[in-house]
């Protein structure tokens, strides 16, 4: 009797403290694909974190929800010097923080100085290296924390609180769209001051990570963070000081997440969640079929700015021979993989940068599937019929059943068409990433989502010395082309140079075998929820989300 009383009491107390006590009425429940890892805009690299940050903060520019072109944000206008190097931003007088303070150019200076400090450990810090003096400043801090270059050597100036002048090292056509991306968001120095941790060294830019938690987090975007229950939900409410307050029509937004896509989908089907930020891969073929038959209209699925490919380790024999790499590519029936394994309308790829995704950029033509030519290439390399080739070590990460199925299909194609054999190793993500970074593989699965709308987000992966160059590929001609492109002020000529670089990569050098372009999407009922738009980068702006028609309380939700 006593143990059961104790159990009852303990259970009741724990249940009480672990459950949310108030859930707003009329709230929209937005389900993310993964847990929120951090709300520090300088440190985030995960899509779900970035999406929430774009609801909480606003940079100098913001994205147009449909075209993703940069439109005025905190800056009401800007001018660009004729050589494309100096950007002058004019901040609007009514841009305010969620605590009512004005957003000033000093706030941007503060944030950019912080992210450029190595101790901030910002994953996307290299994006700021477009700014003149930023890379030397960062490197000097990393090398000599005590005798580093002054921040005034970086090309960012705030002549007055309403003006910010940025000088670039080279013209950058997509610099404005970077202004809408989290690493460039302003931070509120006053709100963060109390979280400074001097014990990490006087020169450090280290803050206690609690500053991102409510009620301390101060942001300047459409919403403010009202609550954050670990692993349960984030509660976003409209920031009443936001200059574009009228565009924000949702009164309460819950950002939630589930341990796996299946339980999330169940919650969506039962009405506990209104928007899914993904289409669950396991159900995607069936859902798309129902959509085609007009049985449902809530699947919003499209090709996105990401590609699935295989890295080839170019450091060792025999894969350092481009003939073999090209042979491997030409012996794969990519159409069959998409049709029979993925069973969704994904697009097979011959190139690395998803075609037709970047305005003004024309993708080159890659190599077609041609088994006879592939066999010839292999013979030319000295391995007719695959004789004399070692068994290649193929690495893939666990977690998605699709990876193994694709690898098995390709292994069979290579064996049948070329006589090439591979050994498939499946590893936990952390181990897989480590092995790939250290080059312990011959062929490895890879996927990449572009970080900004420019071909270099892919092409840079094969530049000598880039930490993200996982293939060990190094080619002076490619490095030269990329360098020339970075100095080229004329946008069309620059893209032409990049076109040449990609053409050489996918027709001659082939350090990676492109397979298909990712597709993804949203799930929501378009008759009930408005203000959401799908776009190629899956940047769903939470700002405009609103009810068109609120649902009646359902069985599962009604008793809250």
């Amino acid at each position, binding site marked *: 009797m006593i143990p059961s009383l104790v159990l009852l009491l303990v259970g009741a107390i724990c249940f009480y403290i672990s459950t949310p006590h108030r859930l707003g009425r009329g709230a929209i429940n937005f389900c993310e694909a993964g847990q929120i890892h951090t709300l520090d805009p300088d440190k985030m690299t995960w899509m779900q974190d970035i999406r929430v940050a774009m609801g909480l903060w606003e940079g100098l520019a913001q994205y147009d929800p449909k075209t993703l072109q940069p439109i005025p944000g905190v800056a009401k206008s800007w001018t660009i010097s004729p050589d494309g190097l100096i950007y002058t931003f004019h901040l609007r007088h009514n841009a305010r923080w969620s605590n009512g303070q004005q957003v000033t150019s000093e706030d941007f200076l503060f944030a950019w100085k912080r992210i450029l400090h190595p101790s901030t450990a910002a994953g996307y810090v290299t994006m700021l290296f477009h700014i003149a003096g930023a890379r030397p400043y960062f490197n000097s801090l990393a090398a000599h924390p005590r005798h580093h270059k002054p921040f005034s050597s970086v090309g960012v100036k705030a002549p007055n609180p309403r003006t910010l002048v940025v000088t670039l090292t080279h013209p950058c056509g997509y610099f404005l769209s970077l202004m809408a991306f989290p690493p460039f968001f302003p931070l509120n120095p006053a709100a963060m001051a109390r979280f400074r941790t001097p014990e990490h060294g006087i020169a450090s830019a280290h803050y206690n990570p609690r500053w991102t938690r409510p009620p301390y987090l101060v942001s300047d975007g459409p919403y403010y963070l009202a609550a954050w229950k670990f*692993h349960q939900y984030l509660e976003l409410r409209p920031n009443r000081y936001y200059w574009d307050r009228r565009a924000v029509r949702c009164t309460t937004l819950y950002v939630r997440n589930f341990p796996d896509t299946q339980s999330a989908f169940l919650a969506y089907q039962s009405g506990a969640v209104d928007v899914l930020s993904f289409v669950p891969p396991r159900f995607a073929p069936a859902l798309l079929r129902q959509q085609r038959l007009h049985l449902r209209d809530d699947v919003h699925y499209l090709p996105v700015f990401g590609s699935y490919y295989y890295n080839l380790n170019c450091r060792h024999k025999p894969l350092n021979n481009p003939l073999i790499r090209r042979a491997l590519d030409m012996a794969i029936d990519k159409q069959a993989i998409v049709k029979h394994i993925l069973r969704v309308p994904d697009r097979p790829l011959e190139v690395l940068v998803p075609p037709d995704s970047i305005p003004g950029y024309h993708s080159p033509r890659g190599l077609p599937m041609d088994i006879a030519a592939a066999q010839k290439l292999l013979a030319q390399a000295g391995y007719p019929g695959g004789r004399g080739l070692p068994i290649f070590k193929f690495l893939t990460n666990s977690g998605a059943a699709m990876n193994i199925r694709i690898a098995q299909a390709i292994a069979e194609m290579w064996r049948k068409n070329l006589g090439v054999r591979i050994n498939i190793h499946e590893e936990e993500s952390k181990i897989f990433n480590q092995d790939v970074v250290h080059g312990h593989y011959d062929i490895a699965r890879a996927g990449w989502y572009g970080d900004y709308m420019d071909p270099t987000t892919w092409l840079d992966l094969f530049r000598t010395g880039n930490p993200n160059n996982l293939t060990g590929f190094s080619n002076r001609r490619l490095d030269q082309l990329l360098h020339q492109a970075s100095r080229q002020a004329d946008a069309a000529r620059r893209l032409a140079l990049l076109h040449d670089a990609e053409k050489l990569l996918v027709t001659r050098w082939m350090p990676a075998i492109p397979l298909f372009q990712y597709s993804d999407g949203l799930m929501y009922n378009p008759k009930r929820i408005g203000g959401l738009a799908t776009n190629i980068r899956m940047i769903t702006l939470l700002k405009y989300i609103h009810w068109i028609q609120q649902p009646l309380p359902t069985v599962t939700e009604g008793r809250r």
Partner: protein
Amino acid sequence: MKKFILSRLLQSIVVVWLVYTVTFWLLMATPGDPFIGKKQPPPAVLAALRQEYHLNKGDFHAYLAYGWQVLAHGNFGPTISYANWTVLDVIRNSLPVSVALGSMALLIALWLGVGAGVLGAVFRGRWPDMALTVGTLLGISLPTFVIGSGLLMLLAVETSLLPSGGWGTLRQLILPAFTLAVPFLAYISRLSRASTLDVISADFVRTARAKGLSPMKVIAGHVLPNASIAVLSYLGPATASVLTGSFVVEKIFAIPGLGEVFVNACLDKDIPLVLGIVLVYTVILVLMNLLVDIASAMADPRIRL
């Protein structure tokens, strides 16, 4: 008694330290780097991250640094995968969820299990006993993910009687608590059936019957208290396994508990978080065993501490 408790507490400190040491070195021996993800930051950023998590000066330095942090500040600092939350924050938020779920499951297991066990013993060899034996066999041998998914399909998806998952209402607690309870329920019912059978044939029970007490009174007043000692001593380990074993149930029913956090922390090689959770589990297990020993001594005068 006092001396016993004191010496057990001293032993516990050694146990906790040993668990910390073994866990730490096991973690260090596993492959994988917590800071290498899909996108590689510049080397200076990686170095800063390693420094922040005490992983820049070799493994032994990290071992001492984390140990010192726990002793001096009672915390492991921020986690690696959820950098805005310290290990303590994570445990504070997720442990109550798992404890609430676990204690409800144990409560169900205890009541239904003991009930079924006594019923089986009373009707020994007849059809209710047979049915219960088959039921408990199924309960012990079927894995929770089968029971959980089955119940989910039946009661949530097909009939919408109960919510499919989530956390926040009592209705959401029913399915996962019952699923988690099933194996413990089955085990407790076997345990209490066996000990009831032992007691039922004892002399004092015959005496009680001979005095003319009704069968109900004999069971409730004489058999049950004596038969429940075995169940009581099982509660200690059961508490530990109900907490650590709730991972599957938490995953099926989308419950934000510590089990899911723990498994993901191991996969992500989140060193401070794994250490923190293992230590919390250890402390709970050690304390529960101590409590159960004290409770058994109080319930059974033959046991001396």
